[in-house]
């Protein structure tokens, strides 16, 4: 259960969103500039809202009323930014283990097996293909033992055939590791395959919430 109710000002842009998500995978859908990434940043603790609250599974991550603002380190949120941001000076293994947390992290073998990156462990990240980078970034986020996974346009940077190959990995994460996913997308195909809730955003506002039964998308 993710409960986000925030107001966030960033220059001339104001985001005012109230979102309740109670599903395994939710998509934030909308044109660029709608505020999708800003919401992910706020949940991850990388941007501070002016007011409101962010609660994940009963844990208060942010509350302006109660003056709570957990630093990103304590939020237990796995974040994969759009450019994946693999640490370029570390190999795949060191990237994966960077956020390892005793007691919280899943087994490395299980994660690399599931994402099929076990053969890449000793490679430099600069030598990886686009799809490999996506999977390593996903693995790195998972290895920190997150209670929530935030993915910013996970498939935007890869071409269509690759997209079809990465999607199953995301489904595995959703179904096997049971880590809820909130992700940003403007690709309908991707949204339909993965999300069971679609929050539609425009100009910093929620303009609609679609569930599979009431899907309004053409």
């Amino acid at each position, binding site marked *: 259960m993710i409960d986000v109710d925030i107001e966030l000002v960033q220059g001339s842009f104001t985001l005012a969103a109230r979102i309740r998500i109670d599903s395994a995978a939710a998509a934030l859908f909308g044109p660029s500039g709608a505020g999708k990434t800003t919401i992910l940043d706020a949940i991850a603790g990388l941007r501070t809202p002016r007011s409101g609250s962010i609660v994940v599974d009963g844990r208060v991550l942010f509350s302006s009323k109660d003056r709570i603002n957990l630093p*990103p*380190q*304590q939020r237990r949120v796995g*974040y994969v930014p759009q450019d994946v*941001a693999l*640490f370029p000076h570390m190999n795949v293994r060191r990237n994966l283990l*960077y*956020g390892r947390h005793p007691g919280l992290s899943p087994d490395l073998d299980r994660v690399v097996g599931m994402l099929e990156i076990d053969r890449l462990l000793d490679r430099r990240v600069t030598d990886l293909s686009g799809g490999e980078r996506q999977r390593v970034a996903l693995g790195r986020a998972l290895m920190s033992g997150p209670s929530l996974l935030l993915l910013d346009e996970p498939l935007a940077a890869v071409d269509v055939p690759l997209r079809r190959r990465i999607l199953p990995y995301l489904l595995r994460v959703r179904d096997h590791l049971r880590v809820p996913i909130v992700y940003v997308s403007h690709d309908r195909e991707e949204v339909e395959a993965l999300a069971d809730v679609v929050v539609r955003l425009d100009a910093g506002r929620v303009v609609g919430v679609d569930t599979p039964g009431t899907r309004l998308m053409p």
Partner: protein
Amino acid sequence: MDAWRIAWFTVLCATGATLIVLPPAVVIAWLLARRTFPGRAVVETIVSLPLVMPPVATGLILLMLLSRRGPIGRVLERFGIDVVFTWKAVVLAMALMGLPLLVRTALAGFEQVNVRYERVAATLGASPARIFLTISLPLAWPSVLAGAVLAFARGLGEFGATIVVAGSIPGATRTLAVAIYGYTETGRDSDALVLLLISVAIAFAALWSAHRLVERRPA
């Protein structure tokens, strides 16, 4: 002719100065690159002062602070530490003159590091100190190193501040630059020329390596 001794002494002092100034300069550069805090502009200005002030003035300020009657010198004297007119003053003068070069080069390096790496590291649970040591510093390292080489080279050529706060004491505080001045003032031009050639060789080697490091820096 103790040219090699003078050269060796100068290289040691410049190395020591660079090492002393490296940690604070890197921290200052990182703070300036990543943090907004009150007095930021003041810090930036103070750090740049040795670059814009006449070196003799920098030396005079150091001298007034560190002499036996100065606020710092008085405290140090109680512990039996003399700085003025010793190799320590040479190192200090070089360090201070190298500080702006090191901070500015390192600052440019930190600014080139994508903030996203540091943010992702934070979401992965890394403390600010760990982020600095494992992400920011390694990625900015070529610039930090290039800045250190620049500071070292600046130390080699330091004259104005050194001669004021460390003097020109043969065998004790005479650096290449100070000795070259001394030799030309007393008509020993050929001795000065030998030191000049040594200086040029060392400075060339230092700047060449800095240049190579900057060139290899990731875009």
